[in-house]
């Protein structure tokens, strides 16, 4: 672990986080951290508490105990607006798009561009959307349609565009490829590499061990609300990770 500390201040440090729902400890004294230009995978079974943990960072939940530090400063995150103020952007498993609105309305939702008169500037927002989508997904054409008319990949690219457009420093991706075909999954993988090069820190929640091995630098594994351990992905095998997920067995201890 000393190797980590030589990298300076972590971008995000979640210390000793606990949250309970009606007596059930969904997250039990868990600590994770994230450095700039790093992808940290969060692994675990359904209900292991990884989504709950990360929602404390994105502002959807508020932890019962524990502290969050952003760039070494103690951060107070009570709602999604606070998280956005820390340049934390989240791409949710459920995509969090308003199906009845078009791509640009979704991209700018909560942060609309307005004219000097204070009215929303649809033309300007659409122009910006066209620019960023041209970068992320050049085949995207359906700017006028509600996002309910888009394919899974197109919807995902709208969700990702939202995070990228607003200069996220910290990106949370909750199973970003769950609903996608192989080609679209590759697009998301390329994008993660690109964002990493730009110095973003990314928390990636995924069930797919292959994807985690390929994309992540470190992996934190959770089981029953507790942290099993955090490992350098280079130092472990897929079987080691599976052992952590299924048996809650730390490879060093096992060895």
């Amino acid at each position, binding site marked *: 672990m000393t190797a980590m500390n030589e990298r300076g201040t972590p971008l995000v440090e979640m210390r000793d986080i606990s949250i309970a729902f009606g007596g059930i400890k969904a997250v039990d004294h868990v600590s994770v951290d994230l450095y700039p230009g790093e992808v940290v995978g969060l692994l675990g079974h359904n209900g292991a508490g990884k989504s709950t943990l990360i929602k404390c960072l*994105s502002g*959807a939940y508020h932890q019962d105990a524990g502290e969050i530090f952003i760039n070494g400063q103690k951060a107070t995150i009570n*709602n*999604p*607006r606070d998280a*956005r103020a820390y340049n934390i952007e*989240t791409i*949710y498993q*459920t*995509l*969090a*798009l*308003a*199906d*009845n*609105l078009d791509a640009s*309305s*979704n991209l700018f*939702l*909560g*942060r*609309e561009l*307005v004219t000097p008169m*204070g*009215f*929303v500037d649809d*033309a*300007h927002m*659409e*122009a910006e959307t066209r620019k960023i989508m041209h970068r992320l*997904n050049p*085949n*995207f*054409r*359906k700017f006028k349609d*509600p996002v*309910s*008319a888009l*394919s899974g*990949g*197109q919807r995902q*690219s709208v969700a990702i565009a939202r995070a990228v457009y607003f200069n996220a420093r910290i990106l949370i991706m909750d199973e970003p490829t769950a609903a996608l075909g192989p*080609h*679209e999954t590759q*697009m998301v993988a390329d994008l993660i590499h690109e964002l990493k090069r730009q110095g973003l820190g990314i928390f990636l929640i995924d069930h797919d061990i292959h994807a985690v091995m390929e994309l992540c630098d470190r992996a934190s594994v959770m089981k029953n609300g507790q942290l099993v351990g955090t490992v350098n992905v280079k130092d472990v095998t897929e079987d080691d990770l599976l052992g952590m997920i299924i048996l809650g067995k730390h490879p060093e201890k096992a060895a």
Partner: protein
Amino acid sequence: MTASADVAGAPRKKSFIETLELDTRMLGMVVAFIVLTVGFHLVTHGLFLTPRNIFNLTIQTVSIGIMATGMVFVIVMRDIDLSVGSLLCLCSAVMGLLQVRLLPDIGIPLGSPLIAPLAIVSGLAVGAIIGALNGWLVGYLAVPSFIVTLGGLLVWRNVAWYITSGQTLGPLDDNFQLFGGINGTLGAPASWAFGILACAGALYALWHGRRAKIRHEFPVKPVWAEVVIAAVIVVAILGFVWILNSYQIPPAVLRRHFAAIGKPMPQGYADVYGLPISVFLLIAVAIAMTLVALKTRFGRYVFATGGNPDAAELSGINTKLLTVKVFALMGALAALSAVVASARQTYHTNDIGTLDELRTIAAAVIGGTALAGGVGTIYGAILGALIMQALNSGMAMVGVDSPFQNIVVGSVLVLAVFVDIVYRKRTGALK
């Protein structure tokens, strides 16, 4: 990515309606409305589409039309407001009490020009505050809006009954009565001026929209399509003004008017009603609410929340506060309707606005507002209100028995929603 479909579909020739970029659903409603009115016109042997009846029809639509614009927001947010009819009654009672008792009691004499504005501002405040209370119960305390407003349906009309002791309050202030319809019209010159200004505004909006698209290099409609739409709008506005300006004030009414101001009526004097102030009010509300829906953050958040409440919340929208605002707006609009409704009958009664909540919801729903949330338009709701009023008044004119009138209106409501579902399935808007 998967965009092959739109690339392949590009060179297809567009139909006339597609080129005009019209909302086909609205077009269908307009056609249904025209068929309905022309049908009544034929059945009544030319009595329905007369200036006098059109004048009355528009006046009768105002109260429901104003509330329906607010109900669109409420339903788009996946909520419902069953209390608007009762709230209308309470606001009317408050304004009536102020006009005939409370304000004169504190030394503002009956007939003072202060009475109407003070009463109206108080009424709007009462409506907005009670609306906000509904919204707070729904948004912050998470009581379902159906229950909150079902309670309100019982509560507010009886509060009105209590504070008025069930008495009829009237006659209302003369200035106040200007908002009722026939007692307050603009006359021909001002009506024409309104029509010309409205045309200018509509043309500016079309031009402005086109310019914004060109500035960002988006595709625009061919110029001829813009001209066709502009022409239809201008003809519709000026035609409407022309019809209202053709409604002559009956000589008996004019004689009474001249007798009241103590002057002899000149020989052969004639005058017309023109645009009623209440209808002007509805048009102003409709334009304002359309702007709010389409061009403000507030409106955008209402539709986003209706489409996906979780997404809205995660996007940093305070959906609880938004609920309070939407219900407060609905309450204020119910108060505005109370002004129009009580001014129209020139006194407050305790049964004013009875069943208006259902008419308002029906107008919004016939106008294409989906109870599932996220979908609805202001112009649709007003068209819905017009269609219902045309049905009611047409059937009364034809001599359909009262029970059958309600049977027909109820059936039309269900049929309209069914047709809408079929339409949305066909066009792929509904899965």
